[in-house]
């Protein structure tokens, strides 16, 4: 049986009917076509499905859509504003921190929650913050540098 839920995604309010066994990742991708959120392992290991839920980065493959009722969700699509791309997005592009791009949305959202809480992280804090997001292309170096660049206002 479907359940009605209200939630806010990227600042916009939604009222949706969802089946209990639908994950938040599937709600975003299949129902709302917000395909910036990726699905990799679907078991909480890879971090490609990362979204921000009430200020915390979580694996949306391990959250039910019904559990997101009343919550505020930010996906990668919500990072861009009228002023343009988010500074993290700009730096990722400038530094070549993106190769295949599959991990990028998760990396950006984990990095954003880090900088929101800790605007001047050291390298270990940066590496810890993205330790739930796997990248198989870049070796992480340019991703770490990009986050550092933004934190230092470069």
């Amino acid at each position, binding site marked *: *049986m479907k*359940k009605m839920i209200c939630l806010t995604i990227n600042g916009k309010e939604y009222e949706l009917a969802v*089946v*209990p*066994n*639908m*994950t938040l990742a599937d709600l975003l991708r299949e129902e709302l076509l917000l395909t910036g959120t990726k699905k990799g392992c*679907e*078991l*909480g*290991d890879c*971090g490609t499905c*990362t979204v921000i839920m009430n200020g*915390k*980065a*979580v*694996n949306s*493959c*391990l*959250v*039910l859509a*019904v*559990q997101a009722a009343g919550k505020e969700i930010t996906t990668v699509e919500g990072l861009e504003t009228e002023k343009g791309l988010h500074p993290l997005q700009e730096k990722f592009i400038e530094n070549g921190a993106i190769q295949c791009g599959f991990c990028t949305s998760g990396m950006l959202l*984990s990095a954003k929650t880090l900088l929101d809480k800790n605007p001047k992280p050291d390298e270990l804090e940066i590496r*810890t*913050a993205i*330790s*739930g*997001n796997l990248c198989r292309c870049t070796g992480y170096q340019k991703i770490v540098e990009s986050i550092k660049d933004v934190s230092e206002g470069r």
Partner: protein
Amino acid sequence: MLLPKFEFHEPATVEEACRILGELGEKAKTLAGGTDLFVNMKKKVLAPEHVVSLDRIESLSELGSSNGMLRIGACVKAAEIAESHAVGGDFPALQGGASKLGSPLIRNLATIGGNLVSARPAADFPPPLMVYGAKAVLKSSTGERTVAVSDFIEGPGRTIISPEEILDSLLIEKPAAHSGSAYIKLGIREALEISLVNVAVFMTTEGPDGSIKAARVVMGSVGPTPLMSPSAEKVLLGEKPSGALYLAAGEAAAMDSRPIDDFRASADYKRAMVKELTRRALAQAYNEI
């Protein structure tokens, strides 16, 4: 990867949750953080007809101390425990366990109660809880009982909790003066790792330079449940802290461990690591005093 179908319940109070679980019994699974339950459901290891979420019960998400007792609601997230000053100040081994569990993403979902009820032999929360002598409060519609965490876990994935009960909270007494504790987790990598071996230790000394009057060593991933090492405790009690003593306690702990050969490492290696991690953890704990 689809989740099997189920009916979803979202009680707002512990009483309501107990009533629902009392009615559904074995047909229901309790949902806390979901980081184990949903993985098992996706892998079709579990397919409960009903899922009872504890997400909306506020009292289960509260962490606080009063009268020298720390109470952690069963649904408090690992991330909150890792960042809590109340935990970090008096219970460094518990903070260690919380901050080593999974990844930051997982720690924002996974709960202390879920980690205990899942009862994996390599889990990060049970050894620290056991060295502090933590107690688990279980509730059902017929009453309440309090049991030591060391008696709570029975085997891999098995605890004494019955299908109609929920784990409400963990209670930990504030350690006596001149106490120190530590948790060390060994894995092949730094993050998103399941322990090869983990060790939590606790000690209290008679004054700042005195001999050891209370000690506890708990080892994870080297037996079907986290194991206390009575031999290591015996070695430590009544003695003055020293490097040689920690080594002797490590050797005693290794003798008490019961590791098996598996794809993660050989039993011999794990036993050797129990010895070394115990030695290091004791030195670290002493520095905390």
